[in-house]
């Protein structure tokens, strides 16, 4: 039960969370539709069901803050304010894409929005996120770096190297483990020595053990706010483990058949962050008309962006030869 007499979040923040999560949900659904229409090629890793995590950080971060995410990063990119056509256009390999088709679904990058890249090799970006955090400390500026990753990442060496370094240097960084219970196709518990793959490792790096319901947008919001504040105040890194569940398989190629039907049903029907948050908004006496207007607005935004992406030209073949080097070219000899 929620206590509506003691509202620490407030209507405007709740509506911002609502709009953000809806955007992430509807764009991912649109991406899935566009796959089925063969307008998106390659692979894609959807974050359907995990929207509260990226969403809560998205509404909590400031301009100038840095975020790093994984190949399951469409939502995290959108959460920083990147345009929908920039994301869908990149997935479709169009000129309007964030990187004009040179990166693709797994490498969404939008530096102007603080999206410092989506990383497709497990663990690498934890070490790189330390670098932007180190730069903030070096320059004595107040940006916060946030690094999102999955439960599978907690078993690779770079995770441990990065946490240790972040702590010894007291870096302004928040590590966010989205534990969706499956390391690609394998239950994370089958391949991990501890019950909570991130949180149970926190003590090894002198960090607090933080576990949060990653499907409860309010809880995620509170957790994000406090970890970001800690980093911005110069009090060092945090490691958050957010429990969640992906609605679809690991990637486009995976129907997710290895998961028990009952488990999937429970998460889809009882623990969906968006369905539950709509109920929460009503419990806080927010006018249903406002809720619906936001729904209609976001739906329209996604449809408009889809049309822009479809109409956008494919990249010029000359793009192949650009931007290997800072001079814009690719020449390796005189």
């Amino acid at each position, binding site marked *: 039960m929620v206590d509506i007499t003691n509202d620490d979040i407030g209507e405007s923040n709740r509506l911002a969370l609502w709009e953000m999560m809806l955007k992430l949900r509807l764009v991912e659904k649109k991406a899935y539709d566009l796959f089925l229409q063969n307008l998106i090629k390659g692979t894609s890793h959807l974050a359907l069901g995990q929207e509260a995590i990226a969403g809560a950080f998205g509404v909590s971060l400031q301009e100038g803050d*840095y975020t790093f995410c994984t190949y399951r990063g469409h939502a995290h990119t959108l959460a920083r304010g990147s345009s929908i056509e920039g994301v869908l256009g990149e997935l479709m390999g169009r000129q309007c894409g964030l*990187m004009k088709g040179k990166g693709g679904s797994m490498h969404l990058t939008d530096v102007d929005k603080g999206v410092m*890249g989506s990383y497709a090799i497990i663990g690498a*970006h934890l070490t790189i996120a330390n670098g932007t955090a*180190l*730069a903030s400390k070096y320059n004595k500026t107040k940006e916060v770096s946030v690094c999102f990753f999955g439960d599978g990442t907690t078993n690779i060496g770079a995770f441990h*190297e990065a946490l240790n370094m972040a702590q010894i240097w007291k870096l302004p960084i928040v590590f966010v483990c989205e534990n969706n219970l499956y390391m690609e196709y394998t239950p994370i518990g089958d391949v991990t020595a501890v019950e909570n793959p991130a949180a149970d490792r926190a003590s090894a790096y002198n960090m607090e053990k933080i576990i949060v319901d990653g499907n409860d947008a309010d809880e995620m919001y509170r957790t994000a706010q406090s970890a970001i504040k800690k980093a911005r105040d110069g009090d060092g890194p945090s490691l958050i483990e957010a429990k969640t569940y992906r609605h679809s398989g690991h990637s486009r190629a995976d129907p997710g058949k290895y998961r028990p039907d009952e488990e999937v049903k429970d998460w889809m029907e009882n623990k969906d962050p968006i369905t539950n948050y709509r109920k929460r908004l009503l419990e806080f006496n927010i006018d249903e008309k406002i809720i619906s207007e936001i729904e209609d607005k976001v739906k329209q935004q996604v449809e408009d962006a889809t049309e822009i992406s479809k109409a956008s030209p494919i990249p010029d073949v000359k793009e192949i030869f650009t931007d290997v080097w800072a001079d814009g070219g690719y020449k390796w000899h005189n």
Partner: protein
Amino acid sequence: MAQLTYRESVSLSIAQAMRKDPKVFFIGEDVGAAGGVFKATVGLLDEFGKDRVMDTPISEQAILGAAMGAAMAGLRPIAEIMFSDFLAVCWDIIANQIAKTRYMSDGQINIPLVIRTANGGGSKFGAQHSQSLENWSMMIPGLKVVAPSSPGDVLGLMNSAVNDPDPVIFYEHKSLYASKEELESTELSIPLGQANILHEGSDITIIGLALMAQRAKKAALELKEKHNINAKVLDLRTLVPLDLQSIKSAINETGLAMTVEENPRLCGWGAEISSLITEHCFSNLKGPVTRLTTPHVPLPSADILEDNTIPSVDVIVKEVIKKVKGE
């Protein structure tokens, strides 16, 4: 005039960069308080303090990841990987992340950083602390590859590497750290992609890098004195960018070419050079390009084994005589 060792040039070149630009910092294992395991970074901590000279844990991925992220945020890191062999434990950060992020981001992200590393044999350290790995990085689009052969070149090339807007791997040769050079000035700048003729000659061109360039020069002196053979020695200095024009003009003049490489045979850097020579200088060639490399074996440790694995001055002299005399 100043006499400097290669190792002193390393620390001086870093200090020069850090004095000029407050965005430059230096990070690595045992680099600060200890002054580096090869004593190539002595004095930097005292001059610049802990905020700019950072000792790290043994975490090569975290070192290069932090350097990459800092570069993405506008700083200009110099990171040390103690032995080039250890590049293997952070190769993802180099080959997948540092090299490709500019391209994949459509040029949104610049990564101006220098990775310094002690490379090469001669110290009898065995197969995991002695490799010459320039060719590993040469084959990855997005990486610049530098391997200086002298104290002056260390100064001049480091200056260019630190100021370059792209990632540079800077291979320092362990067996050259003690070598000395008289320098008229220590304020040097050598553009990346400019080869250097270490010895003039018209009978054959010997192409080398780092220690092998210096051995080729010694061989050329001996060939001239004792065998009346005039060998031109071309020190490439950098593999990427590559000074193809200097290679072409040298080969077109001499008609014979030999590469001297410290790496095992397969896919060594000389294979690419040989291919380019064939492609661009075929009509001027008097014979096939010869590649001197180590045999295709890991580097052994014992004196006699290592000495007979890496191309020596004697071997270069012998092979050049065979080639020039058509034997």
